């Protein structure tokens, strides 16, 4: 019995260590962003806001932030729309070539980003779509639509199939049933998918770096600063980026989890 308790605490400690390893870079980045040393270490230097002031006064950073916001908002909208339509098609219809259809949408995340980046750079240059903000939006939508599809499909599989037919029997046509029954049921998944796809797009740097041309997003600016040398500015920008994406991911998860609980209470 005693050895089992030792094992238990060993495993808990191990799990805690793994979580420390995973979150250490995020936490240190935030700490270093307030640290005066150019090359931060322990013991820490004095508290400062100068790195935040530097980026606050940098017009390039503002421009990139604007581009990033436009891109992630558009990507989230397009990817969620595409993901919803695909998830519903998969839920409702059976047809030949369906495995191929699903592969078409689910494959992009399994291709390394650097390969997609090169392929899209070349193809977009050929069809006259390179170096524009819209190019990044299109590329990121391809990449993120699978996430949207997966989240919404999972939600649809929890739906009582008779809800939709009940709406038809009451005289709703298919569009009406879709709008009044399916979409409201999927709302938490739709919100969640919107946040997650926005977060992925907001952090993606390889494709954006290759195809953005002069329209740099925030991660591209970070990549360029990092390539130069050690500059604690990166920690300041990084802290903003962390705050943004963590907020989005937490919202996405909380929305899904709280809805689940509410429904369990209703059914129970």
């Amino acid at each position: 019995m005693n050895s089992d308790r030792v094992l238990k605490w060993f495993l808990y400690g191990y799990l805690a260590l793994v979580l420390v390893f995973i979150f250490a870079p995020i936490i240190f980045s935030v700490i270093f962003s307030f640290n005066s040393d150019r090359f931060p270490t322990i013991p820490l230097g004095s508290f400062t806001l100068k790195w935040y002031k530097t980026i606050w006064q940098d017009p390039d950073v503002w421009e990139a932030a604007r581009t990033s916001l436009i891109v992630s908002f558009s990507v989230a909208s397009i990817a969620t729309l595409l993901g919803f339509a695909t998830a519903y098609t998969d839920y409702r219809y059976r047809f030949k070539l369906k495995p191929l259809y699903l592969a078409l949408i689910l494959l992009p995340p399994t291709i390394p980003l650097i390969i997609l980046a090169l392929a899209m750079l070349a193809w977009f240059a050929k069809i006259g779509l390179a170096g524009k903000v819209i190019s990044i939006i299109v590329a990121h939508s391809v990449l993120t639509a699978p996430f949207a599809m997966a989240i919404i499909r999972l939600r649809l599989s929890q739906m009582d199939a008779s809800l939709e037919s009940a709406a038809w029997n009451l005289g709703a046509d298919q569009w009406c049933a879709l709008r009044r029954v399916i979409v409201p049921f999927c709302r938490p998944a739709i919100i969640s998918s919107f946040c997650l796809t926005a977060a992925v797009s907001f952090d993606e740097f390889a494709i954006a770096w290759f195809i953005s041309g002069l329209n740099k997003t925030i991660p591209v600016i970070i990549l360029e600063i990092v390539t130069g040398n050690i500059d604690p500015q990166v920690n300041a920008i990084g802290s903003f980026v962390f705050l943004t994406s963590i907020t989005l991911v937490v919202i996405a998860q909380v929305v899904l989890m709280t809805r689940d609980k509410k429904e369990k209470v209703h059914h129970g």
Partner: protein
Amino acid sequence: MSVSKQPAKTPSSDSKSARQRQKSDLFQQVLRLPIVIWQSLFFIAPLFFLVAMSFFIVRNYRMTEAFEMKNWLKMMSRDYFWDSYGLTIGLATLATLVVMIVAFPAAYTLAFRVSENTRRWAIFLLIIPFFTSYLVRIFSWYVILAESGVINAMLGYIGLGPYIMLNTKFGTIVGYMTLTLPLVIILQTFSLANIDRRLVEAAYNLGCRPWRTIIRVVLPLAKTGFIIAAVFCFILSFGDFVSPYYLGGSKPPTLPILIVDTVKSGQQWPRAAVVAVVMMVTLFIVAFGGIAAAYRRRNA
């Protein structure tokens, strides 16, 4: 999905149902087709173009469409290409082994040793880094692992070090782990949690020792999920250019760094395309090999 083409204006009940069917067909296509068009134009077409591009030639700094083996022969005959290839496969394999082993005790704890609520919170935490800027996290490791960085400073207090961790394979693996460890723990946890507990308890009741139970009962039952986790880990590490560049020092470069350097330093896109195609073929072999292994064992 053939639709009967009846004149739409005859007021018979037949044509009404035909009209309805036509309408429902439209509904179905409006939902189904956008993704097909979108992914064909912006996902499949670029990949095919990439393969085609590996046969193009560059003349006077301009890329011309052609069908020549020049790029392939050139890249295949270079030692540095094969050095990079070997290094990339070696590093990705090492990372997969390390990550799968490091993740296992954590996944085992989450699957068998904690309440469902704790597990849910742990998964919640593990999902966050997956969607959080990888680039900034690697920069953070760069500062932490440096010769006068946080880790060496802490080791200094107990009289150890300093150790050189940047520009080594160790640095690269730390970077790969940053990228893949959360995902692998999640996938391992799910496949362990789905095991039929009664089989594990049966082994235990029949006197099987814990270690033997894990190796002979738990792991074979979770095999499919574990292979999928390993394949994902390999793909992500194999395709990443940030960790081997910033933490590994890029000497020699891995294949993804080779692509970046080739594209960013000039017009030699076709040669970069050769590297990319070789990478894709390698990944297909690994992925299909993994899947085949996963399902063959299942049936045996």
